[in-house]
């Protein structure tokens, strides 16, 4: 009896040790020795410039910079279903940034999501896309980042629930979902398309927002570009399930990505505003390439005539008004003076029959935009819209949304609008409160 127990205990111990060893083998990565930060003048200026453009395509600043914070100094809270992760400091500060990282450590992080010290990195850092970036581009990005102003700043500790706060588990996630995705290549489609594929699937990581994620936060490969969620915004479907009233073409996408708005589709806002802000300054060819590839993803223009701007129809105002009379009055009094002015974008509001926000199955973008408006971009010309958060209450908002949906969306009414409006307003209040942290006395202005 005692002998049997000993055998069972022995087997259990062997299994545990073997399991731990296997787990260790999967999870463990060696530390790469720190260096003293290289002098900026040791980098080739042409390479730094190329890295700058690549960093803009990669949208690095959006996550690695807080509002009003130093560039690339990190600390931005990124909400996930598993808790909040704070972005890291990627300035060349030796103690708190990546100043001590040799180039090989940077390339490894981009390729396989491992920190210089061997720790597993959370896939909020989109290495599932960055693994597709060429080594030459990684080196240019390294040259760019290592020549930035070093900033001493440590991000707050991540707030993750158990077991997600246990980093070695990320190795298991990688076994399941991280397989060094390939970039599609197709010689027949031409050089521009292939360049676009390389950028979109790699550095630009468009799918990180526009592809839905599974329960463990991995992109669903069989639903690529069918629409996702980011920061209380809906990232629209970009494949052939797109709800855009007017089909996207390569030219329209180019104009939108380059300028932040396009006459048949409207204005980039929410997280996409930051993307187009970055794309405004990168080489023209690369924006054209992204547009060409994404236009192909969105499919050929539909035969039902949805390809032309003229094809945009709307229900009769009278029918829609019957469906939502209170909303009709609000639209006529508060919205129509810009949205039916006939002034061209960006100086007039878009004809809402062309707005994907109204045809989308998810009303959140439309709610966000009515509440907060479209803010001016510093130093840029562009469309602006006043927000109505302070003057429209939830009941009025729901009435307005029902009217817009009936008249311009020509689709069944959205479900649960009351709840979605309340949630959007609460989310906005949280972000406003975060902006309103009172100043320290040293920051106060002098008379």
């Amino acid at each position: 009896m005692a002998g049997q127990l000993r055998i069972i205990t022995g087997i259990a111990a062997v299994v545990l040790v073997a399991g731990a060893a296997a787990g260790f083998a999967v999870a463990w990565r060696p530390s790469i020795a720190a260096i003293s930060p290289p002098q900026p003048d040791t980098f080739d200026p042409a390479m730094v410039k190329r890295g700058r453009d690549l960093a803009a395509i990669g949208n690095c600043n959006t996550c690695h910079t807080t509002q009003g914070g130093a560039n690339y100094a990190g600390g931005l809270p990124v909400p996930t279903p598993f808790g909040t992760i704070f972005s890291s400091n990627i300035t060349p500060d030796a103690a708190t940034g990546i100043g001590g990282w040799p180039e090989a450590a940077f390339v490894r992080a981009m390729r396989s999501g491992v920190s210089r010290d061997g720790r597993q990195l959370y896939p909020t850092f989109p290495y599932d896309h960055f693994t597709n970036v060429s080594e030459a581009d990684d080196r240019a990005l390294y040259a760019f980042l290592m020549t930035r102003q070093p900033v001493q700043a440590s991000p707050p500790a991540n707030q993750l629930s158990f077991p997600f706060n246990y980093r070695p588990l990320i190795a298991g996630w990688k076994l399941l979902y991280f397989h060094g995705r390939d970039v599609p290549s197709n010689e027949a489609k031409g050089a521009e398309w292939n360049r676009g594929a390389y950028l979109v699937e790699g550095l630009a990581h468009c799918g990180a927002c526009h592809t839905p994620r599974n329960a463990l936060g991995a992109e669903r490969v069989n639903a690529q570009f069918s629409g996702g969620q980011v920061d209380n915004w809906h990232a629209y479907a970009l494949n052939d399930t797109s709800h855009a009233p007017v089909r996207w073409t390569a030219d329209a996408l180019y104009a939108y990505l380059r300028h932040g708005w396009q006459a048949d589709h409207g204005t980039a806002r929410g997280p996409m505003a930051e993307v187009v802000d970055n794309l405004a300054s990168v080489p023209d060819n690369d924006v054209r390439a992204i547009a060409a590839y994404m236009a192909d993803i969105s499919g050929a223009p539909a035969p039902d005539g949805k390809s032309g701007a003229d094809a945009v129809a709307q229900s009769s105002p009278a029918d829609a008004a019957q469906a939502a009379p209170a909303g009709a009055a609000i639209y006529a009094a508060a919205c129509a003076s810009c949205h039916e002015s006939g002034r061209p974008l960006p100086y007039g509001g878009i004809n809402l029959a062309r707005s994907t926000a109204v045809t989308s199955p998810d009303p959140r973008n439309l709610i966000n935009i009515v509440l907060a408006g479209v803010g001016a971009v510093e130093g840029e010309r562009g469309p602006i819209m006043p927000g109505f958060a302070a003057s429209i209450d939830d009941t009025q908002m729901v009435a307005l949304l029902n009217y817009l949906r009936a008249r311009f969306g020509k689709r069944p009414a959205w479900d649960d609008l009351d709840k979605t409006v309340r949630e959007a307003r609460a989310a906005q209040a949280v972000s406003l409160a975060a902006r309103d942290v009172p100043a320290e006395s040293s920051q106060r202005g002098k008379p």
Partner: protein
Amino acid sequence: MITLKVNGQDHQVDADPDTPLLYVLRNDLELNAAKFGCGLGQCGSCTVIVDGQAVLSCVTPLLLLEGKQVTTLEGLGTVAAPAPIQRAFMEEQAAQCGYCIAGMMMRAQALLMRNSKPTDAQIRAELEPNLCRCGTHMRILRAVHRAARLMDTADAAGDRSIR
């Protein structure tokens, strides 16, 4: 007839429900602090406070205001007894032509009611929808900081609240 609550008083207004608040304030109630600038919610000179928040009165129809409290600059203080925000703008000489200033003060007031010690960056972000063509921005910035300090002092206690 529509009942409109402005600066603590109920007014019976004979206007269509889709009339912009600004027109009613200026034409019916003869409260002329809020200005007509662009009429499209793009310049901020018509800014007033509704239930504690800055609102562009030129794009706010009466039908949205049922049961809500409107405050205009006239509701903050008078020439004889200016409110802290008005005193601060005068003391900093923040007005050049002055057309935008009523709107600036109302939006700054709304900010100070929820953040008693704003940073420069917060004031800039808050006042971004309000345009000034004379370029007195640096003085406006100083005036908002001064108003924050005035509201903190004992003699102005309670002045952060509005009627």
